[in-house]
């Protein structure tokens, strides 16, 4: 125990290999030492495996959809199966992958280390969150295997009340309820940890920007998710007891469901993208070896996005029936979100300007993020405008828009972050060249998949249709080819990471030259991270951090 508590090597000494003999991975062994662990790093890794598996599952469904749409009619799935496949693709990707991906997997691993603490404030609650996530996963898989869920991931009433797949709706909504609480408890844990456990010297404005982004995300998780909880609970009651709150036959109002649902699910979009922005802020600064440009504006803009995010849910419902004034207000508020988002993009570009850019795998993913997120963000503006939205509502334009933000944004940033912190998490370096090839394939494949969909959408191709007009077939085929390319790119990325586990060279303490606290910890970190809380200064001060060929990594010169 005591041996493992000691950080074995101090990089300041510059002596010996930075690879510790004892670290959190070999601190204890056996199945139960993982299943019952309270160590945030192990919980983070378990989440990582879980969310990646969910992503693989959701990705399979995505490819099934794309292959079905190869021909304009008579796809290989029945219409009913097609409905179930796109529902499961959406539900799995949103609830099981994107929402927990960055906060629960990377956030869990990094947040306490970046704060110089031993663990999050409530380690048992943290493990509880993980098992709630597992329970949600099981319920989703039940909905998948026993009966088919075919309502779309949004569970809109009256589909969800009237569909024959009642058992599946119940299992899935209860799964969403449980996953919601998993998300709430993670957010709560992070807020409390950041508020009460910052080390000496770390004022709010000396926090790494990833922590600001995580903090803003956690605020949304805590404030928005309970509303989703009660919404899906009412929906379950609707199915079980016929309470009628969302059922027009019983004088209920189905649009109320949409309001309740989007009151959560729009802020949830920012639960997905904000941590990604936090990752990019870290990646930009570290791989440009230059202090982040406009630190405070990036920090404030995270909080601003979190707050504005609560006021714009109505833009999902412009065609659902709302008062004209309401739609105008929601439309105007929607545009305000673009301001803090644009601030971030400009600040990242400002960080690159005159920086010493290291073009490596994490940086390539970060650059891909900026490109894709900018397209995703800018195509949100026409959808926020009332007149255009009437035309493009529920078309492939919307599909392409949110895939550019969710996948081009969040997933690409997640991959960038994963490559960036992989040496820290596993203690192994990956093959950077093949990693960069994977980034390139993902980038090309992604654009090939979704750029045609913008065109399809503006030409009137509605989303969620199993068949379409023949004139759209070429663009659909282009998109399908793109999706297969994307799949190959992601597979290459996975292989690079898996390969590194077995054949990768040992990672130095600071492979990229970062200045935040996780790069002070050994790779992988010891069981307790830090024996005492370290004193910290500016997280983006790169003065004196220089490459040391002997260690293969960066070292802080006194």
């Amino acid at each position, binding site marked *: 125990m005591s041996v493992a508590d000691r950080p074995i090597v101090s990089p300041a000494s510059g002596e010996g290999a930075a690879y510790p003999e004892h670290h959190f991975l070999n601190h204890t062994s056996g199945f139960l030492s993982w299943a019952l662990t309270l160590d945030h790093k192990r919980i983070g890794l378990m989440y990582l495996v879980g969310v990646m598996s969910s992503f693989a599952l959701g990705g399979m469904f995505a490819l099934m959809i794309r292959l079905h749409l190869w021909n304009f009619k008579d796809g290989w799935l029945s219409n009913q199966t097609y409905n179930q496949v796109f529902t499961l693709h959406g539900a799995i990707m949103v609830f099981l992958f994107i929402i927990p991906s960055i906060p629960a997997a990377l956030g869990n691993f990094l947040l306490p280390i970046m704060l110089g603490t031993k663990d999050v404030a409530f380690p048992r609650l943290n493990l509880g969150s993980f098992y709630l996530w597992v329970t949600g996963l099981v319920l989703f898989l039940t909905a998948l295997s026993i009966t088919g869920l075919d309502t779309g991931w949004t569970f809109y009433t009256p589909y969800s009340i009237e569909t024959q797949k009642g058992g599946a709706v119940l299992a899935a909504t209860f799964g969403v309820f449980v996953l919601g609480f998993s998300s709430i408890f993670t957010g709560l844990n992070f807020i409390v940890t950041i508020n009460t456990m910052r080390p000496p010297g770390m004022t709010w404005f000396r926090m790494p920007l990833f922590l600001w982004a995580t903090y803003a995300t956690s605020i949304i998780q805590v404030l928005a998710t309970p509303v989703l909880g009660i919404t899906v609970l009412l929906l379950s009651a609707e199915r079980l007891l016929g309470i009628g709150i969302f059922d027009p036959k019983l*004088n209920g109002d189905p649009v109320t469901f949409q309001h309740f649902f989007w009151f959560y699910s729009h802020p949830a979009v920012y639960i997905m993208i904000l941590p990604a922005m936090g990752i990019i802020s870290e990646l930009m600064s570290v791989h440009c070896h230059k202090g982040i440009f406009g630190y405070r504006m990036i920090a404030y803009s995270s909080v601003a996005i979190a707050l504005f995010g609560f006021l714009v849910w109505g833009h999902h419902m412009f065609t659902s029936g709302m008062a004209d004034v309401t739609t105008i207000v929601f439309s105007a508020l929607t545009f305000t979100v673009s301001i803090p988002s644009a601030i971030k993009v400009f600040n990242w570009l400002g960080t690159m300007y005159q920086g010493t850019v290291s073009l490596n795998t994490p940086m390539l993913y970060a650059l891909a993020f900026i490109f894709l997120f900018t397209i995703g963000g800018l195509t949100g503006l026409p959808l926020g405008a009332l007149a255009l939205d009437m035309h493009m509502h529920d078309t492939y334009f919307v599909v392409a828009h949110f895939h550019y933000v969710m996948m081009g944004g969040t997933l690409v940033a997640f991959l960038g972050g994963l490559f960036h912190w992989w040496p820290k998490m596993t203690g192994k370096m990956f093959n950077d060249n093949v990693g960069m090839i994977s980034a390139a394939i993902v980038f090309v494949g992604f654009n090939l998949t979704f750029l045609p969909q913008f065109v399809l959408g503006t030409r009137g191709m509605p989303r969620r249709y199993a068949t379409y007009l023949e004139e759209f077939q070429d663009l659909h085929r282009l998109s399908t080819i793109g999706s297969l390319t994307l799949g190959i790119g992601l597979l290459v990325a996975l292989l690079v990471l898996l390969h590194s586990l077995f054949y990768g060279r040992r990672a130095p303490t600071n492979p990229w030259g970062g200045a935040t606290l996780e790069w002070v910890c050994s790779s992988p970190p010891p069981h307790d991270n830090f024996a005492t809380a370290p004193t910290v200064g500016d997280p983006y001060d790169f003065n004196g951090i220089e490459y040391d060929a002997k260690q293969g990594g960066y070292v802080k010169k006194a």
Partner: protein
Amino acid sequence: MTAIQETAHESEHAQDHHHDHPAWLAHHFDDAEQQFDAGKLGMWLFLVTEVLFFSGMFCAYSLYRNRDPQVFEFCSRFLNEKLGAINTGVLLFSSLTMAWAVRAAQLKQHKLLVGMLGATLGCAAMFLGVKAVEYSHKWELGLFPGKFYVSQIPGAAHGEHGYLGSLCIVPLILTIIAGVYYIYSLATMSKFHQQVAGPILVAGACFFGGVQLGRILEAEETTHHAAEHAAHEHSPGASHDHSQDHSAGELLPEKEGGEVIALGHKSIEDVKVMSEELKTPDASVNQKSMAGLFFSIYYCMTGVHAVHIIGGMLVITWLIVKAAREEFHDQYFGPVDNVGLYWHLVDFIWIYLFPLLYLIT
């Protein structure tokens, strides 16, 4: 890098470090204050999520009440204000005992702490007992949520369905287990087990006390109606000032007459609808597509609240175990304080539910 040097230096004291930590202080906290602050902030954030969780239902309430106020006025008459008021008092009193428990924990008054937690648990059980009577009574009248709502007609017969009995099964089993546990604690002369078993057994008794109290008051209301009804029969139109408590025999709802279902064969007395109200406009609301929605909201709100009471009872029981072990002192009373906060919130939500549901006529 000073930080890491310090870290490396400190590692020399790694073993000592653990000895500095008393058992009640989790190893990742520096001191008692940090642990207390973290717990407190965590609980406040949890309460925020709880408020938002209920806010969805309050939203639905205001939306539908604003749209159909007459439905809410009509249906609210079926709720027994007396029972609601008693439950409000019970919960307020339990908040007092909970706050007192926090003080007892700080002052290391271990016996008083167990007593106060026990009193809180008893109040919670009594609340649920009264609620069980309210629910079962409504179910017997056919006042179900949504599509199961049975239109109320004076003259319809209502049978005993044994709903109350079914609701009492689980509490009865738990009380018997608590009783057996208490006897065991007496037999083994274990002070710890007695301190745990005693309050739980008392809570079980309180549940049935609540049930009894509820039944007496509900029966009183019913006989009251019967008397009123008799008076009404003899001198029609005589006592309009008691109009809410009336039942009348002759009118059927004008709409949906075909859906009227007679349940069993018992007497008519406890339908508290006056003939005038069954005419326009209220006759139109006395059907599942209107009144059903009120009862949906009623059952959802009070049901979720009751689930929170049950959750509170579980954590209070956990506190009683810790208190019986005399774990709390002036440096470590966070769990009592935080459960107290939670309990006050549950109380607070009821303070809103009571007038919004019971007192709108």
